[in-house]
């Protein structure tokens, strides 16, 4: 990690003074321990740097990037950006505004490979005793973000996350269970609960029965809701897609979804992975996206905001190219997961989704499969395990059919894209034939 003042001083030294310019730096250190079939097979540490220079030269915008953070390399990136200025300008820059200083959980920074190994050993011991196999990883991420520009922005922050992700599989059958936990503070990482949930799912899904194609009620656990929200972020809340009319939203204020659906983006929420400004240095604030089913807003960076004669909502992301929510929150309701199951005559409990793909963005038609444990609900009880099921679904229709919303939110995702979401019960979800391997 570089000291704040040292980092900003170097950037300001390199920032061109004769033209509008911006330099953004992201350094990310990721340490991870990897499990394969109950053995810790690899420990890793990766230090990555992304320096992005954007300039306006003779009314045209150019961009250069590098991963080497020293003066010659930074100057070369500036020179490359100036030489490659072909995109019609102007370069829209954020003005200098204050942002909230955040403190970093030091435990995440200090977690050692042995700390991670000790946590994972608890899991492998439990799995071994239950004749289950665990694959997965435990990761600590620490990042620095710094932005300087010609309008006086000089912003710096640190960010951190610790993540635990596992798949528990049966050594004798097709059963699978998925477990995940994420927290900004590595000390608060709970590895036991996700394992127990995943193990239970795995054991209960070893004997699977086929399911006829059709529309079903679904109970989506938070990891499954996060999967839908990830694709919803692309389809509904991407400002660039909104400008290009590649979305079902024709105008803000439209009621598209169930009244039970309220979504916002808030990177200052202390329950999530906090970030005080975006990668153009725009200070973050809460942005309402959907209020009681009515579309309220889309995410904008400086360029997309200029096209709409609006101001940036602070959603410039590194490497994505289009502005999207990075800290999406779905408002919790008052239903417990058990209530959702108990109130269901016939439905499907989904642990998570896999491989969601957009078939048509304007129609919001998506496809994917369930994964990590899919269970049949009959007369208020979990009665049987199902194979992974393929769905083809209109996402507007699905989110317009919310019957119940969970009372607890869970944090899922990573540093640059996280989701604080509850479980949802939807009345309308279309599955194709559900024979194992026939999806």
């Amino acid at each position, binding site marked *: 990690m570089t000291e704040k003042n040292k980092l900003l001083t170097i950037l300001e030294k390199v920032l061109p003074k004769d033209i509008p310019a911006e330099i953004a730096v992201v350094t990310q250190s990721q*340490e991870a*321990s990897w499990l394969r079939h*109950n*053995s810790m*097979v*690899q*420990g*890793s*540490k*990766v*230090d*990555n740097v992304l320096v992005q220079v954007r300039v306006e030269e003779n009314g045209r915008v*150019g*961009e*250069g*990037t590098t*991963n*080497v*953070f020293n003066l010659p*390399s930074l100057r070369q*990136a500036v020179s*490359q950006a100036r*030489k*490659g200025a*072909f*995109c019609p300008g102007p370069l829209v820059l954020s003005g200098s505004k204050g942002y909230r200083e955040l403190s970093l959980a030091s435990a995440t920074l200090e977690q*050692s*490979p*042995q700390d*991670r*190994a000790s946590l994972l*050993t608890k899991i492998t011991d439990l799995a071994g005793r239950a004749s289950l*196999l665990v*694959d997965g990883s435990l990761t600590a991420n620490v990042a620095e973000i710094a932005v300087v520009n010609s309008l006086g922005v000089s912003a710096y922050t640190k960010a951190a996350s610790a993540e635990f992700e596992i*798949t528990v599989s049966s050594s004798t059958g097709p059963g*699978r269970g998925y477990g995940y936990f994420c927290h900004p503070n590595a000390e608060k990482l709970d590895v036991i609960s996700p394992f127990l949930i995943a193990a239970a799912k795995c054991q209960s899904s070893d004997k699977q029965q086929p399911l006829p194609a059709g529309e079903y009620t679904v109970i989506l656990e938070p990891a499954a809701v996060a999967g839908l929200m990830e694709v919803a972020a692309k389809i509904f809340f991407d400002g660039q897609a909104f400008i*290009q*009319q*590649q979305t*079902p939203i024709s105008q803000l204020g439209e009621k598209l979804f169930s009244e039970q659906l309220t979504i916002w983006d808030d990177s200052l929420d202390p329950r999530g992975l906090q970030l005080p400004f975006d990668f153009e240095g725009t200070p973050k604030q809460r942005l309402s996206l959907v209020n009681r089913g009515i579309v309220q807003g889309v995410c904008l960076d400086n360029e997309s905001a200029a096209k709409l004669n609006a101001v940036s909502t602070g959603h410039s992301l590194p490497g994505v190219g289009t502005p999207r929510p990075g800290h999406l929150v779905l408002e919790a309701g008052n239903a417990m997961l058990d209530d959702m199951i108990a109130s269901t005559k016939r439905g499907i409990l989904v642990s998570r989704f*896999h*491989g*969601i*793909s*957009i*078939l*048509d963005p*304007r*129609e919001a038609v998506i*496809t994917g*499969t369930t*994964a990590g444990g899919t269970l049949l609900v009959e007369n208020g009880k979990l009665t049987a395990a199902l194979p*992974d099921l*393929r769905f*083809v679904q209109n996402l507007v229709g699905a989110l317009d059919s919310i019957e119940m919303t969970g009372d607890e939110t869970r944090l899922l995702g990573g540093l640059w894209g996280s989701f604080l979401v509850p479980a949802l019960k939807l009345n309308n979800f*279309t599955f*194709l034939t559900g024979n194992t*391997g*026939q*999806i």
Partner: protein
Amino acid sequence: MDLLNRQGGIILEQLLKHGLDAAFAAGADYVELTGVDVEEQKWNIENARPSCRRNREAGISLRLIAAGRWGFAAGPATNKPAVSQLVKAALEGANVQPSNRHPVELSTAFPATGSWAGACAQDPFTISNAELLEMLEETDQAMTVEGIEQRRAWLHFRREHRHYLNSEGSSNQQAFTLSGGGITAQAFGEGEVQQRSWPSPQGSYAGKGYEYIKELDLPGHSQQIAQEAFALTKAPACPQEVMDVILLGPMLATQIHYTLGVRLQLGMLDSLDLQLTSQLRLGSPALSLGADASLPGGAGSFGFDAEGVKAQSFPLIERGRVVNYLSGRETAAETGRFSGGCMRSPSLYSPPVPWMTNVIMGTETCSLGELAGDIKRGILMDTPRSYTVNPQLSGFAAQSEIGWMIEDGVITHMVKNPFYRGNSKAFWSGCDAAAAISHQKYYGIMDKGIAVGHSVVPVRIRSVRVGDRR
């Protein structure tokens, strides 16, 4: 190669040797280091708005075995103290308690040394900005036809110098040039977006210079794909029924990539045992595939893989049965084989994994007309729009940008949204004919940052469930 290697390779070689010696002195049982220097240009034109991004990237990755497990560290290390930090991090990652109950074993590999450079007749980094812009503007202009709302053309050039060293005496220097590009036109219909791309929405890549961009002929395909995109908004929907299918082009390359290639990457599934059923059948006798990491100009070509093993060429599937896998030294050892030389990584920040190189499809004797001629009712698809596989890779769902109906052996009209799905093995078991070598085409797919070459000929698949999204 000036970011890391300013004095003709001497500095980089010294850094790698320093890391090797330091790791051994600290107790590593096996060490390998790779120094990478990358130069990239990404050109884009979207609705007449051009942009260009230039990237330079350099660093070192280090992988070692200590206490029976892997330690990996990577970063933009440009001096000895930084390399020492990589050694320390990798060792700390591996040297944890309890010890590994199943220590890593590597298959024997004979030390290989040498240098290799990929094909590059016309260096893309010497093409003037004016020439590139002119070509992109011409392409964009040609897509400006009735009904087209979004136009995009792009180019990607990547030059990578790689220097590898391991503790068993292997060392090599390689220079890769990768060129890719593509175009997409979108038309908006009633509540829908229809698109056509060339060669595919993800373009196509080859291990060649600018000559590959000329081969792609983006301007020459622009007008036709734009007209087809608009025509799709008025085309009938694909019928929902079980019918025969002809797959070709990038649609076929994508189908092979995800339903066959990924399954043959040893270690990709949870259990190796699943893959090692001897003579596993994945398709009909009309299906044959091979891997060739030495294909001239292939997107997945190299001289040595990421473990320093020489490039190889071998059959993967013969007449529907699996005869070999894509492996590295660890997965080969687990299965009692020698490495297939297929270890690849998307960047210096990721440890290598067994991955496809260039996948070459076996040819038969049919012409395209003969494939269609024997179809009473079917559909021809050549460009993927969407593709997903299930977690165990046994099932898939795909949608092509465009479908061409075949009725009584004749192509009759276009249909939109041709969606098909199935079980991979059942799908390929329905393959009853492949075209002759004269129909062979090459496409390069970029999958998770790793470029893979695919050489394909059109195939006919019987009895596929098409059009049914319900």
